[in-house]
């Protein structure tokens, strides 16, 4: 490799994280990255151990991380950056026990597998509408035509947003995506998006507190009345739910479609039985090229592992992208194989913070892959020139043009 060994943003590491982090997994499973000043965890067993020991590793990372943003931002935007951190530290995913248990308890029931299954017809119809719009043209950018709008439609509907506001919310959702971008000016659109979302949600929270309905804002408003969420936490978690379920699902759709098209035998198998294979296909897409490559913890005690000492206060990044390809956990891990079962990938994390939206994301993935296989068995890539956003956390394609004529 020609780049600095520890440059997590080097173009070849962004383009292919599997080689670099796979190498670390085999040679130095608990790696100290001096440049970014953090530990890197890549083995499946270590990852499970780390995330299930929430008493040793705190999730309150963004609030306590004093490092300057990377990639760098416009210097005059430091104030905006601090504001963003202030918002994000009130997210559910940043909370530790005991508070996390109570907060999650307040919202968990809304997202149970049984409850999310009821959204399947709505998801199916939304996928159908989006594909109807592009079918006659013979091509689409999967990202713009399907992967970006679909999750926003679903989440805004869950929030109880009226149809006429959907386009506005989609604009705001697009601004929230700047959380994960590399552009130096990104704090401006991001903060604009967050502020506008909060302004949009605030009066609705008040209305729902007085007149609850069966939407997600009512659930949060109820949790505020029960003293579990502060008003600020209600606003932040509503606003950022639009983000939590957006980029992640977008990446599942794009990365999954790409994996399917790059493995013609697997694509043919799915096209032969779209309904029957959609579930297994979605799990294998999640494992093979996970939407979230890595996330963080911070040690709250000194801990020894692999003969090394993780010190209290040290930051740790755990890579599901590497753990999902660990040969100790998966046979023939670099093979994309729709028949893999069981498939205990860690793409939704594990332990107490296991993704709240996992079933919803699964339903969206299943409906998308099923519909694509049913409608466009001749689908193929329209370009091999694919680029990823320069993020250490998300595995996000910048576009994915395909054609089926």
């Amino acid at each position, binding site marked *: 490799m020609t780049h600095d060994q520890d440059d997590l943003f080097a173009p070849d590491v962004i383009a292919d994280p599997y080689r670099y982090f796979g190498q670390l997994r085999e040679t130095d499973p608990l790696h100290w990255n001096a440049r970014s000043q953090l530990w890197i965890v890549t083995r499946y067993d270590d990852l*499970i151990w780390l995330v*299930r*020991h929430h008493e040793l590793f705190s999730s309150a990372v963004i609030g306590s991380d004093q490092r300057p943003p990377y990639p760098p931002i416009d210097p005059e935007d430091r104030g905006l950056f601090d504001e963003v951190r202030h918002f994000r530290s009130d997210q559910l995913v940043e909370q530790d026990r005991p508070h996390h*248990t109570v907060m999650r*308890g307040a919202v*968990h*029931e809304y*997202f*149970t*597998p*049984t409850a999310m299954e009821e959204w399947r017809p709505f998801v199916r119809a939304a996928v159908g509408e989006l594909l109807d719009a592009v079918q006659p043209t013979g091509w689409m950018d999967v990202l713009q035509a399907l992967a970006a709008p679909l999750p926003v439609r679903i989440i805004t509907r869950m929030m109880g947003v009226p149809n006429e506001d959907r386009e506005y919310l989609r604009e705001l959702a697009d601004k929230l995506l700047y959380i994960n971008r590399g552009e130096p000016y990104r704090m401006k659109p991001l903060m604009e998006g967050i502020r506008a979302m909060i302004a949009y949600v605030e009066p609705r929270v008040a209305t729902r507190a007085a007149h609850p309905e069966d939407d997600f804002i009512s659930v949060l408003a109820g949790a505020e009345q029960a003293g579990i969420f502060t008003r600020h936490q209600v606003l932040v978690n509503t606003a950022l739910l639009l983000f939590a379920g957006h980029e992640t699902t977008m990446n599942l759709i794009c990365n999954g479609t790409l994996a399917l098209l790059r493995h013609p035998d697997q694509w043919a198998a799915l096209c032969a039985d779209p309904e029957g294979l959609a579930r297994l296909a979605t799990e294998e897409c999640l494992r093979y090229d996970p939407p979230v490559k890595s996330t963080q913890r911070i040690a709250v005690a000194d801990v020894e592992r692999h003969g090394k000492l993780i010190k209290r206060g040290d930051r740790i990044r755990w890579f599901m992208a590497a753990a999902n390809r660990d040969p100790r956990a998966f046979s023939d891990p670099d093979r994309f194989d729709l028949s893999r079962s*069981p498939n*205990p990938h860690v793409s*939704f*994390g*594990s*332990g*107490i913070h*296991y*993704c*709240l939206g*996992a*079933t919803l994301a699964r339903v969206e993935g299943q409906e998308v892959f099923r519909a694509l296989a049913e409608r466009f068995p001749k689908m193929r890539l329209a370009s091999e020139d694919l680029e990823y956003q320069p993020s250490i956390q998300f595995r996000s394609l910048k576009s994915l043009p395909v054609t089926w004529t």
Partner: protein
Amino acid sequence: MDAPRITVDHTRCVGNAQCVTLAPAVFRHNEAVQSEVVDPSAAPLELILKAARFCPTSAIRVESASGAVLFPAS
């Protein structure tokens, strides 16, 4: 009433702790922070079914003493 039969599929359980939080007398985490059934009769059936429904990965299966599947539905 006879105790229900409860099983936890460890290829699915991710240690999300919904079951051990809702029905701590029935479920407990093992060393690997996965759920194990300690006493299927230690909570009302309703609560056990709630725990199964709250499991984010549908790892918990509940059958009546006579073997009828109570969760998951179909």
